[in-house]
């Protein structure tokens, strides 16, 4: 109670003294407050607020720009990835096509080669058969000659043993006819 009554009293006391009252308005203090505050305002405005606020704005702008740039870069990268994917799938398709073509071509080639080699083989076999036939003929002819020679030799032998001309004649005849029959 004492305290509050004192405060109230001081507030009412009002008129200045050495110490002054709580609610006294002192002109000197107003003067100094205005001087101090206005000077502080001017000094801080020039020294602090302008550069600090400017750099804050600058930084905010920088951050905003960086974010936008990053966003753009991300979008660009996504686009690139998309493009790459598309290119890759196209390339794969192309490769598949090429492989298929190659396979088809090789199959065709194989078939062709097979057919060619078959015909070649047939040709070779034919040639070989012809050769064999020819060789057979030759051998037969040789044999014929050989037989003729042998016959002649035999005839000579017989002639030398039997001088009988008629007999000889018959034998030769018979021999020759036999030979022609064969």
């Amino acid at each position: 109670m004492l305290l509050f009554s004192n405060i109230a009293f001081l507030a009412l006391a009002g008129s200045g003294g050495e110490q002054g009252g709580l609610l006294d308005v002192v002109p000197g203090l107003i003067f100094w407050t205005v001087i101090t505050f206005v000077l502080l305002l001017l000094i801080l405005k020039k020294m602090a607020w302008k550069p600090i606020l400017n750099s804050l704005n600058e930084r905010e702008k920088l951050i905003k720009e960086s974010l936008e740039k990053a966003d753009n870069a991300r979008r660009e990268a996504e686009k690139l990835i998309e493009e790459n994917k598309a290119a890759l799938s196209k390339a794969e398709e192309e490769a598949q096509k090429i492989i298929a073509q190659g396979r088809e071509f090789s199959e065709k080639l194989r078939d062709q080669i097979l057919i060619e080699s078959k015909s070649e083989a047939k040709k070779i076999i034919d040639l070989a058969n012809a050769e064999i036939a020819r060789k057979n003929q030759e051998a037969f002819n040789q044999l014929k000659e050989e037989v003729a020679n042998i016959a002649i030799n035999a005839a000579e032998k017989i002639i030398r043993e039997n001088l009988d001309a008629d007999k000889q004649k018959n034998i030769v005849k018979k021999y020759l006819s036999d030979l022609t029959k064969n």
Partner: protein
Amino acid sequence: MTGIDSLNTVSDSLAKAENSGSQDTGWLMHHILDARELDFEPFGTIHLPNINLFGFDISITKHVIFMWLAAIILILIFRTVSKAYQKSLAPKGLSNFIEVLIIFVRDEIAKPTIGKGFERFLPYLLTVFFFILTCNFLGLVPYGSTATSNISITATLAILSFIMIQAGGIIHNGFLGYFKGLVPHGVPAWLLPIMAVVEILGLFTKPFALAIRLFANLTAGHIVILALLGLIFILNTYFVAPVSIAFALFIYLLEILVALIQAYIFTMLSSLFIGMAVHQDH
């Protein structure tokens, strides 16, 4: 002299009635009121000079010294911060902390209350905020004194706010336009004289409320702390000391909060009034 003398006699008589010992409240007011000297008990006191200019008493008092101290602290801090920003845009340490407050004033106080064109008032609002904040905190330092618990100083700050509000309104709306805009739209013609008086009165009650609010909040905390500590001497016992100190500590912590809140509220309301003066249509 007379006021204090009569106060002393009153308190003396009250004290004698309640307690046998002689009690004096001068010590309590001594810590709150302005003074012509700086007390550094028990190291002695520094007497400040009396200055008279053209018959005006413009003596430098304790509160003037503490205002200057606040101004010097602010100039030193902001010179450092400003230099730090010139070096790099990324803040650290002190600049980081100060930047939080600056951005708070800009984005939470000025931008929403004033809206478009708030940049013009930002230097004033920032200065008022940091000046009041520093003055408030200087009162919580040992041997410190709260300049903002002096009605003359808070009234002057409020008058400066008043000037900013009116100047902002007049520059933005034109002299006649501003005073026309004070009266809301759609008021019947016969009400106009009354409304004009009410609105003109309203212009002055706003800064008056600003001054009284700041002064009362900053004074009350100190008085409560001193009263709690004074309880030890009034009751003349040590047993009350732990309780007194605990409560005083609590009030002290509360005062830290009040120091922040009052700086915020003064700036916020100044900004709000500026916003109302600049954009009168709502």
